[in-house]
């Protein structure tokens, strides 16, 4: 029984220039203590999908479909119910640690907030627990840091604070939206280590949203590749890297720098605007394998190997293997 089951999730934004379809019929499941990597370029709808589950999107967004968490219908839950799930059962870590923490309050205060709100801890207990959490996320001198303000911490430390805030109430799912993108490469490794640690120690299921395949290879159990609001491939991580099927996935792997692999291949063209839902394969305009079929029909998800699904009319590895 999966922890989170999403079926046919669609998100549409009503903007001044017309509707924008950010997510188109996305379906996936997440099991307990599983790490799911969600990969795709900026604007492919990966962040929006997960924010929609907790209704964190602005009012211009319309969400359709079904999403069940632990037996609860997320999309139709009451605001009060939703608020009891946010931060407590499902927690978010956002991309920009610089701006995601409130500059006016001490770090300990912000972590303590979640503890006081959801677990009813007293101020004293919340402060003690905050220090423990800061230690958990490996911030040195936590007793000192707990009374500091966000601007006194480095980017990497701020991100750790965000993670501490997120795991404070021992949530079942931790959704990390590009947790390392705004950080230096050297810091990134530390954050990823931390995520692995959290999964091991606390048994939290993690959704790792990123555009960086390297990050995913490190930590994820399964990978979901999105393009233009649709899922185009999904597979266990080793399977995906060994036998990528979708041309986009192949493109992404080809674009990962590797010593000795020669010139980086880029995927020509640009991400399509999401204003109209094309009645065709969304990737066709940029796809080397595109033909009449992919330009006129939307490919369904098909299982090409155990637990490996692709939405493509011409699945298979690229001629230039990237092994």
């Amino acid at each position, binding site marked *: 029984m999966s922890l989170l089951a999403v079926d046919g999730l669609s998100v549409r934004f009503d903007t001044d220039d017309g509707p924008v379809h950010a997510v188109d019929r996305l379906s996936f499941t997440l099991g307990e203590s599983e790490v799911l990597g969600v990969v795709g370029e900026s604007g492919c709808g990966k962040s929006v999908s997960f924010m929609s589950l*907790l209704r*964190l999107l602005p009012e211009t967004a319309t969400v359709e479909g079904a999403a069940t968490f632990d037996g609860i219908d997320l999309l139709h839950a009451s605001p009060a119910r*939703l*608020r*009891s*799930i*946010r*931060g*407590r059962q499902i*927690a*978010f870590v*956002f991309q*920009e640690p610089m*701006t*995601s*923490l*409130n*500059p*006016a*309050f*001490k770090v300990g205060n912000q972590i303590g*907030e*979640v503890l006081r*709100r*959801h677990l009813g801890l007293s101020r004293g207990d919340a402060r003690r627990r905050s220090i423990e959490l800061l230690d958990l996320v490996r911030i040195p001198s936590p007793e000192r840091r707990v009374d*500091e*303000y966000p*601007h*006194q*911490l*480095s*980017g990497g430390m701020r991100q750790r604070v*965000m993670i501490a*805030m997120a795991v404070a109430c021992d949530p079942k799912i931790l959704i990390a939206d590009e947790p390392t993108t705004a950080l230096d490469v050297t810091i990134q490794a530390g954050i990823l280590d931390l995520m692995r640690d959290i999964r091991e120690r606390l048994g939290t299921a993690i959704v790792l949203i990123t555009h960086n395949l390297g990050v995913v290879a490190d930590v994820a159990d399964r990978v979901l590749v999105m393009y233009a609001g649709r899922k185009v491939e999904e597979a266990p991580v080793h399977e995906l890297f060994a036998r990528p099927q979708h041309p986009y996935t192949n493109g992404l792997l080809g674009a990962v720098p590797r010593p000795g692999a020669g010139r980086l291949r880029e995927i020509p063209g640009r991400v399509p605007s999401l204003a109209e839902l094309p009645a065709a394969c969304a990737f066709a305009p940029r796809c080397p394998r595109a033909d009449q079929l992919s330009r006129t029909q939307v490919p369904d998800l098909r299982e090409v190997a155990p637990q490996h699904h692709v939405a493509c009319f011409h699945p298979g590895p690229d001629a230039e293997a990237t092994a």
Partner: protein
Amino acid sequence: MGGFLLRKAGAALVVVFLSSVVVFIGVRALPGDPALALGAENRDPAVLAAVRHAYGLDQPLPVQYVKWASRALRGDLGLDARQLPVGHTIVTRIPITLELALLAVLIGVAIGILAGVVAAVRRGRLSDHTATTSSLVGLSVPHFWLGLMMIIVFAVDLHWLPASGYVSFRQHPLSNLEHLLMPALVLGTGLSAVLMRQTRSAMLNSLTADYVRTARAKGLSERSVIAKHALRNSLITVTTVVGLQLGALISGAVITEQIFVIPGFGRLTLEAVNERDYTLLQGVVLVAATGYVVVNLLVDVVYSLLNPRIRVSGATNQ
């Protein structure tokens, strides 16, 4: 925080000093020979020379300035045309204006910030439009005219409030408030209009900020999100605006006291100009400028308390 405040205090001192120079020169630039006025219009050159010497008017300007400034620092601002000590007159009149200003600020801040928050939270809805339009009206209304209108309605027609005059708080607290209510409302309206717009704008920025999204994602109640997270950051911006508005408040007090015949500091300024009492005018302007600088310094203090980036120095490694 100490560094920030020290710099601001230093700047304030420079401004006060420069202002005093400007006041000094300004008054000297006024037409008319002060020796004539001081010597009771006696045009005898010998007498004029004696008067000039007695008052130190024959000394070079910088020397005169130093003498004047050093006396001013000790609180001696000279004698006005009625031979009354300027310092004393000012000191008796200031508390009245201060009370008026305080009431006006209370009204302005309470209404302005509240309306601004409501307008931002209920953006696009009726309460937003009402508040925004009211603030626009509040900005466009000439406040002295508003005062006149209020006198017509509340004093002349309805006889609810006195049209003019002042009663001190110690003498009769209720009457004191009755006399100050309309003037304070008049002054406060302008302030509330500006504050409402600034608060709304700052809140709209805060409400779309990432940290508010984080607060919501943590499952905090909407009230907590608005009142604690969004408002706190908006107040930082609003504080700077309040500081800037205080100058307008002083100007407003001058006219308001004129219309409502309140014997305050503002009215004193007009009296000084009308009576061509230059010593008095000099003292008044100096005190006004210094007061403004001091109050702004206080605003800076509040600002530094609210803004942790100023209160505590930045990151050690970034």
